[in-house]
């Protein structure tokens, strides 16, 4: 097994660790935390994958995630917060 596939496999195991927190986590914020961790892991996996194939255009997807990936978790976090404060 060469270098890049080994790194990708290790990263898949790390993703499974984050997914365990998403599945187990007692509160919803724990699940969100696992979600944001998996999102950053995905970016790094895309970087390693593009480096393995030496294709520059594959990095566009990583740029999309790094620009827009936080919107999902910020939206869900805002939603939870507003639900608990808005009805006072």
């Amino acid at each position: 097994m060469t270098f890049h596939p080994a790194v990708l496999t290790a990263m898949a195991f790390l993703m499974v660790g984050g997914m365990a927190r998403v599945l187990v986590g007692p509160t919803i914020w724990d699940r969100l935390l696992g979600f944001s961790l998996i999102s950053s892991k995905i970016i790094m996996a895309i970087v390693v994958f593009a480096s393995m194939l030496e294709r520059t255009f594959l990095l566009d997807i990583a740029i999309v995630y790094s620009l827009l990936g936080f919107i999902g978790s910020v939206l869900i976090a805002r939603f939870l917060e507003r639900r608990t404060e808005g009805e006072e």
Partner: protein
Amino acid sequence: MIEVILLVALLVLSVMAIESRIMRVSIVYLGTLSLLMSFLYLFYNAPDVAIAEAVMASGLTTLLFLTALKRYRVYRICFTNEAFRRVNDRYIFEGTRRGALLHEIEQFCIARELEPQVVCTPESLDLVAGSGRYDLIIRQEGDELRVYGDKENYFVDELEVLLILRYHDLNVRFIRSGDPVEEASVAEAEGEAS
């Protein structure tokens, strides 16, 4: 190798997203599912689809699901324990007896189409009750669990019967009180009328 791991993860996540009864948790599952799926599209040499999946999943579908979810009513449960000054996550886990109780209350809420949200805090009871954010407050004092709820609410009536029947070993006691603000306003109105 990575392909097999991610495909199995996709299976687990999709089954959990359908089976989970709390809608907001389902949204988080679906977000994770689209993250992993986007990488798999990339792995199968379809970068166009991967970009579309990434954008749609991160912003658009999440906002649509959350807007659809605004119609659900959230039932807020607060677990407070001021005696120990420390409240840990283990209070919420399902393994312990208290965790089983909280889990039972959550299932009870879900059966009546309410979204339960459990929050765990070491603040004092006055502060928690004064904020007026919570529908049900569970407070631990030594070996006793005291549950504070509304006075006139048939939901709390049913919950009281259930908890006293099943969890008598935890010394559950129910204390029913009306909203203090409402009581004051009612008293004022009565005074003006007389």
